[in-house]
């Protein structure tokens, strides 16, 4: 057992309360009462923020009653989620520099090699095939260009 459900429940409720606090505080910079054009720009968000704090306090109090031993996620479960999440985070970070195609190609090939147990040639071929389909669908069929990176520029693909 890695994380307890109760701690995560309490943490989430607290995070939502903080979010509500940010919304309410930011709204104070606007008119939270009656302005020139009726209720001001801060009127609605300010009250939403306060309500959000109230609701999350309620969730927080209810969560205190959860059995302290209940598990949120087991070690193996967390490992599987992390095995998908971390490479995905790298993909998101790399996309602005490498472009959609190259970054996604590397991601797909890596995941197949790492988790599917396929050899590199096969993984790379599959990933390349998928990206070719993407190129056909987006650039040619629907004419929605995806982001390109330095490699496409070097190859002269726009």
């Amino acid at each position, binding site marked *: 057992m890695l994380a307890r*459900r109760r701690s*995560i*429940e309490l943490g*989430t409720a607290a995070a*939502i309360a903080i*979010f*509500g606090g*940010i*919304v309410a505080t*930011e709204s104070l910079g*606007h008119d939270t009462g*009656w302005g020139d*054009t*009726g*209720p*001001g*720009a*801060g*009127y*609605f*968000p300010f009250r*939403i*923020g306060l*309500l*959000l704090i109230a*609701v*999350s306090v*309620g*969730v927080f109090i*209810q969560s205190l009653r959860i059995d302290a031993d209940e598990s*949120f*996620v087991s070690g193996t479960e967390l490992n*599987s*989620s992390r095995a*998908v*999440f971390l*490479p*995905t*985070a790298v*993909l*998101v970070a790399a*996309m*602005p520099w490498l472009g*959609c195609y190259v970054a*996604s190609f590397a*991601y*797909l090939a890596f*995941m*197949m090699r*790492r*988790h*599917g147990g*396929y050899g590199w040639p096969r993984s790379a071929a*599959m990933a390349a095939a*998928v990206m070719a389909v*993407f190129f056909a669908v*987006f650039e040619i069929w*629907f004419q929605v260009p*995806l*982001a390109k990176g330095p490699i496409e520029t070097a190859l002269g693909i726009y």
Partner: protein
Amino acid sequence: MSDFASLLTGFQTALTAYHLALMVGGVLLGILVGVLPGLGAPNGVSLLLPLTFSMEPVSGIILLSSMYWGALFGGSTTSILFNIPGEPSSVATTFDGYPMARAGRATEALATAFSAAGFGALVGVILVTMLANSIAGIALRFSSPEYFAVYLLAFCSFIGMGGGHPLKTAASLLIGLSLAAVGMDTVSGEMRLTFGSDQLVKGVTFLVAVIGLFGIGEILVTVEQGLKFDGIRTKIDLATVFRTMATMPRHWLALLRSTVIGCWMGITPGGPTAASFMSYGVARRFSRHPDRFGTGEPEGIVAPEAADHSAGVSALLPMLALGVPGSATAAVMMGGLMIWGLQPGPMLFVEQHDFVWGLIASMYLANIVAVVLVLATVPLFSAVLRVPFSIIGPLIVVVCLTGAYTISNSMVDVAMALGFGVIGYVFKKLDYPVAPLVLAMVLGDKAEDAFRQSMIMSNGSLGVFWSNGIAGSLTTLALAFALWPVLARVFAWASARRVLA
């Protein structure tokens, strides 16, 4: 023009080769996203939406709605064959569908599900056809207080009827409303919650939220359960299909009851998921042999399926007539309407006559197309699930992130989709419902505008929401829904005391 004449002109719009091809394509894509865990109707429609920006609105909506119908059917296939609900709304179908399939009656289970679903969808469309014009007619007289009351009712019915944890549902709604406020204020032009960032001026688009919450978040939850799917192999033989369909009239009461529940939950935004669970529970309670539920009882398939589909279809009625979507997917479609430059709501029936009736007519056709296609493609799509998850999973992630990029060619959206994915994962694990968040993001600005205009009309008095019969009863009903969890507890406490005394 009468409803029937309008419908006929609608068929003229919908019955073109191009639109039929869009229906087939949409349904097939829909079945695919319905079958794949992690891709469902709401984010399938979100992913497809940017590709329809260049289409005629009526063609775009036919494509998107066909995808919705396909996804509703596809979700049931995996529930029955793999015990994996492809859609949250088909969870209840696993209870009896999978045991029936495991007992060697897979074709029967699928045929029962699709017939019940088809019946539910048909009743839903007929309801939309009959009521759309009159509701829009009533709504034409609505002004801001009535609109705000309708939005409030939509939000509150999630709390009272959604079936989830009421406080968590409220939190989800309020987060959605906060996110809707990000960006330029439509009335004063002030920048709200942007913290000086240029990227946030245009606001947080709900499409990114849908892709993250429903797509990435779902994948992260799915991979926890291990990466292998064990399904039941089946061939569809037509004789069994027709024999099963012939037995459907036997379930007329369950069909009727489930459809009524579904239509009600679709029109008041309880959504298909709540409808299918509620219908399953009701069917078991009124069954003559409730002990057979969970072991492969046909009525246990009929009830959730008929409710799921009638809710899915009738969710479009309030979206079109009032501008209040009845489900998360309908919310995404309504966002699409606004992006195409159409204003959902009663004026649509006056100004965009061909659009509305083309869509309604296409709902008849596309659901027939869907029943045929889903039966024909069961072997194909169950083969899709046998592709190793190490290929399918990452592919779904790439499709989601690419979809987030295409919304406005922005890498910030991609990063936000990942962020929403993490939120979706935590919310899913802690039973925070995400559909209310999406609905609130879509309706937030409209609700706020309606509120502010009502306040101006009344010079700041909240009494304006009770100033006439319609607004008053809607507002009161909304508050009753919001307080329902508390009231129910008080009633339970009172009756427990009476028993003790």
